[in-house]
């Protein structure tokens, strides 16, 4: 027998005892009938309500009928005088959120409770009633609520005030009538009443700037009792500071002393709120920041994780704008790298990466290496991103950082993490030429043991593009051919293409590549075999080692110059006939191209290999497109193609943007046009350009667009001649001219007769920046020294009053169209001076470097010293001329 009981106990423990074990909605609803008993058992009733609440809490729902039944039953319980039961009734009513006709049933009971002598009843009845009430009822109880706000019992007052905050959303005009009472409650001695009253008063007056300012002024002088209310006051104060600084530029910042005083408050939440408010002030100065940083620094070594987290998160944000201000905390930050809480550790590391200087990088990387092994992937990705920006900031340190990236690449990790690392390496290879060879080798090692097909194929493609251009391409072959032996079909096919690329680009490797490709002919996957056969035949693998024809290279490896979307549409429309599909019939211009480019610019550095590929391919595509037009084929090498500039507003009948192609002696405008009207077909589309405001340009040729059907983009070109090598500038006005034909939407056929029409476009401009290519140099100082002072030109300019120093710097960068180096385009807020380094290649392939020094005085007058070095004296002068004009 004893044995039996024991067994039962065991099972209970396993199943984990719960008073709600096996609870079931239907049964509980049955139980709720006890609410109707004439003799109420309040204990029993409480239990049943708890069960109902338990069910709701677990996600159970009641049908409309069930809810109504329960509601009516519950209202009967107002007869009981048991406080505990009454509290449960309140909870239940709030949970059921009764409809307005049901509300009426309980209104009088609740109103009675509201005016009872028991404070617990009063406070809770107010909250319940306000929760379930509507506007009409509210006017009836308004009088009581006003009284409650100034009630001497703080619980009652708070209940009324908090209800007021909620009601303000639905019935603002009523709640606004209470401001006198709320005002009185702000002076309450009870801490939380003051907090709630302040919150409500501010919400009532939030649109009245003057009133808020008065409120803040009076309260910052008086005493605020609760830390929560003090936090609110700090928030309102920052709001007033923000709004007043817009009108009032000079003098001391108002209320700063109050915020600083709060840093000495005894409650940590107030100290932190004030410190955070100071760091978020617009254009905060380092003198203002210092006390806030000091208290945050103290928090960094607190024993409470929440405090450390709050401090490091705030400092991390400060480091983005004021890295110097945070450097004092570096020692404390470094000790946080080993923090138990990984969020804190990651924030500490990314802060350190932002504030660190060049000399500290090596030491920092050592510390991070230990840390990386034991954090989750999501944190690692954050760190990898931070390291990438650090490397771009200090290109000289690429060796340490690249090694770090390759080390973590070898360790365990999920796809997203590995992709982040590979993306970073690719970006570093692209932006830091010195890092190319080591970076490629790291990637090669990675694919030796890479479980992600996507990453392997992407890296192989990237190798095919970059590898042949290196000093010793042969060393990559082994890595690539290993893929052919060891990997799945997708990767093998990709490796075959990469091999062929090496073969096509590097003639000395050709014989060896052919041997390897021939082995692939026996692969058991058809795609791999097909690719090998194709490459062998086109590259001349029949034995004769000839130089690969340019056309063949184009055919095999040139980027597909037609958008895939257009190709897909054309292929779908193609009907199998005798006539083969003609790829040249596919429209080349894609409507969404500018959009895609915008996206690419916004989502910097996402897809692996895509950014460099799309950059080069855009130029390639343009070059090919232009050289295919006989009129333009004699213009020579394309120097630069601008980004598309929209000439129409969005959503107009015809969407037109222009791409400016700059040649040595010519300029070609490429107008990309889209017809957005389904009922129209445009023919003989040309852009008539008036170049009267561009004296140095002479119109040479126009290439009209024969037909522009609905939603299929097309291009028309206009070419100009200009003096050779001269960076001529000018403004051009454009009018789109065409013959419009009506299209029957049902048949899609156009009528025979058309009407001539024209459409005014916005003006386009050729500016000095169009003659400048943005080219990054990895080490500005070395480049500067090596150019030498022979053709250095220095001069000073007054830029007049500017909005801010940073605005002036950006204006000059845009004017010159050059590449800012070493992150010098970012101006620290509030600094009075700034130095900026720019590099670029000027038309005629002349390398240009620029050093800019800016200074600003109290009247916002900006002065600039411009030093130019280039390979050509006249170019140095030309740069000065650009600025002088």
């Amino acid at each position: 027998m004893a044995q039996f009981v024991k067994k039962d106990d065991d099972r209970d423990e396993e199943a984990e005892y719960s008073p709600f074990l096996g609870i079931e909605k239907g049964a509980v609803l049955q139980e709720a009938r006890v609410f109707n008993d004439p003799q109420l058992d309040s204990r029993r009733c409480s239990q049943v309500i708890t069960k109902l609440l338990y069910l709701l809490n677990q996600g159970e729902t009641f049908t409309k009928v069930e809810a109504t039944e329960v509601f009516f039953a519950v209202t009967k319980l107002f007869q009981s005088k048991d406080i505990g039961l009454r509290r449960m009734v309140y909870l239940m009513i709030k949970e059921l959120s009764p409809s307005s006709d049901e509300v009426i049933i309980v209104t009088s009971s609740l109103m009675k409770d509201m005016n009872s002598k028991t404070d617990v009843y009063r406070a809770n009845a107010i909250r319940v009633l306000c929760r379930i009430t509507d506007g009409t009822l509210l006017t009836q109880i308004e009088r009581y609520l006003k009284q409650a706000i100034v009630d001497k019992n703080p619980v009652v007052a708070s209940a009324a005030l908090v209800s007021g905050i909620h009601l303000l959303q639905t019935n603002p005009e009523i709640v606004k009538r209470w401001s006198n009472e709320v005002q009185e409650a702000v002076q309450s001695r009870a801490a939380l009443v003051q907090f709630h009253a302040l919150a409500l008063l501010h919400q009532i007056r939030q649109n009245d700037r003057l009133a808020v300012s008065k409120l803040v002024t009076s309260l910052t002088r008086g005493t605020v009792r609760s830390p929560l209310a003090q936090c609110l006051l700090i928030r309102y104060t920052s709001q007033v500071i923000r709004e007043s600084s817009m009108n009032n530029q000079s003098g001391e910042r108002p209320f700063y002393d109050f915020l600083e005083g709060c840093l000495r408050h005894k409650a940590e939440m107030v100290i932190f709120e004030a410190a955070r408010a100071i760091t978020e002030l617009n254009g905060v100065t380092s003198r203002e920041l210092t006390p806030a940083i000091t208290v945050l620094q103290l928090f960094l070594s607190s024993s409470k994780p929440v405090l450390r987290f709050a401090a490091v998160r705030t400092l991390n944000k400060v480091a983005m704008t004021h890295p110097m201000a945070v450097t004092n905390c570096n020692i404390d930050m470094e000790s946080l790298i080993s923090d138990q809480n990984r969020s804190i550790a990651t924030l500490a590391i990314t802060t350190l990466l932002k504030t660190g200087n060049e000399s500290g990088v090596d030491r920092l990387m050592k510390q991070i290496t230990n840390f990386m092994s034991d954090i989750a992937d999501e944190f690692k990705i954050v760190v990898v991103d931070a390291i990438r920006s650090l490397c771009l900031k200090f290109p000289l340190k690429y060796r340490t950082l690249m090694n770090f990236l390759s080390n973590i690449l070898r360790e365990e990790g999920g796809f997203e993490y590995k992709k982040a690392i590979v993306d970073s390496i690719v970006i570093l290879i692209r932006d830091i030429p010195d890092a190319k060879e080591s970076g490629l080798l790291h990637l090669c090692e990675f694919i030796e043991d890479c479980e992600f097909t996507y990453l392997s194929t992407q890296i192989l493609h990237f190798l095919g593009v970059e590898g042949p251009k290196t000093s010793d391409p042969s060393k990559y072959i082994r890595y690539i051919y290993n893929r052919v032996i060891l990997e799945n079909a997708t990767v093998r096919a990709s490796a075959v293409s990469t091999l062929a690329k090496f073969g096509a680009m590097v003639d000395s490797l050709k014989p060896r590549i052919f041997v390897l490709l021939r082995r692939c002919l026996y692969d058991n996957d058809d795609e791999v075999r097909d690719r090998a056969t194709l490459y062998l035949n086109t590259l001349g693998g029949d034995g004769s080692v000839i130089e690969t024809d340019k056309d063949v290279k184009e055919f095999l490896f040139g980027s597909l110059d037609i958008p895939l979307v257009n190709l897909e549409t054309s292929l779908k429309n193609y009907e199998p006939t005798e006539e083969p599909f003609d790829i040249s019939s596919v429209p080349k211009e894609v409507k969404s191209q500018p959009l895609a480019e915008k996206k690419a610019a916004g989502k910097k550095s996402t897809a692996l290999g895509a950014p460099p590929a799309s950059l080069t391919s855009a130029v390639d595509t343009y070059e090919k497109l232009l050289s295919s037009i006989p009129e333009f084929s004699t213009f020579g090498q394309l120097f630069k193609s601008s980004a598309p500039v929209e000439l129409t507003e969005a959503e107009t009948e015809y969407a037109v943007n222009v791409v400016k192609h700059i040649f040595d002696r010519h300029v070609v405008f490429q107008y990309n046009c889209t017809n957005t009207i389904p009922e129209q077909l445009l023919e003989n589309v040309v852009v008539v350009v008036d170049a009267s405001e561009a004296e140095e340009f002479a119109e040479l040729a126009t290439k009209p667009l024969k037909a522009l059907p609905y939603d299929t983009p097309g291009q028309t070109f206009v070419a100009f001649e200009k003096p050779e090598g001269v960076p001529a500038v000018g403004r051009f006005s454009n009018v789109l001219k065409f013959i419009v034909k009506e299209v029957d939407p049902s048949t899609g056929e156009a009528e025979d007769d058309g009407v001539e029409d024209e459409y005014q476009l916005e003006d386009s401009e050729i500016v000095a920046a169009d003659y400048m290519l943005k080219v990054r140099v990895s080490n500005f100082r070395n480049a500067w020294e090596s150019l030498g002072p022979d053709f250095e030109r220095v001069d000073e300019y007054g830029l007049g009053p500017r909005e801010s120093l940073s605005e002036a710097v950006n204006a000059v960068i845009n004017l010159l169209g050059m590449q800012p180096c070493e992150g010098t385009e970012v101006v620290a807020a509030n600094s009075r001076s700034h130095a900026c380094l720019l590099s670029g290649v000027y038309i005629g392939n002349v390398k240009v470097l620029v050093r800019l020094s800016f200074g600003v005085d109290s009247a916002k007058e900006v002065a600039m010293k411009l030093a130019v070095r280039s390979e050509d004296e006249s170019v140095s002068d030309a740069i000065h001329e650009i600025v002088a004009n």
Partner: protein
Amino acid sequence: MESCPSVKNILLLDSEGGRIAVKYYSDDWATNNAKEAFEKSIFTKTQKTNARTEAEIAMLENNIVVYKFVQDLHFFVTGGDDENELILSTVLQGFFDAVGLLLRGNVDKKEALENLDLILLCLDEIIDGGIILETDASVIAGKVASHSVDSGAPLSEQTISQALATAREHLTRSLLSG
């Protein structure tokens, strides 16, 4: 930022991530499924951390979550990502300590379920619609535990039929005036 500090949810889960009592004050999680998914992810994320001596903190889906564990109970308070972390942790501490007082130190799942009414009342006294009502544990527990028959108040003599009569009167009046 000018707004009042607000709490998005308070959760009390067991050692397997199951619900003891939860309360959501924000529309961020519209359905029960969304709520359960959030609870699951926050539970998994924090499960292995040691939040028994000091409250811990984590970021999840652009929210800040402060949490503390005792026995087989996991307490969570969630706020928006621009919320003052220390305010959230004050709320958590208030909830945690109040539950400790109400359960008389026996803070575990069994005790919590047996006194679920107290836990639910406790939640009701801490936050009202996202706004902090009270953070002092002894005050919260005091308000919840005042279980006694109301002696001072006039007995609510009104019978249910009277209540209905008054209600009907209100209804007709509002109909007439409307």
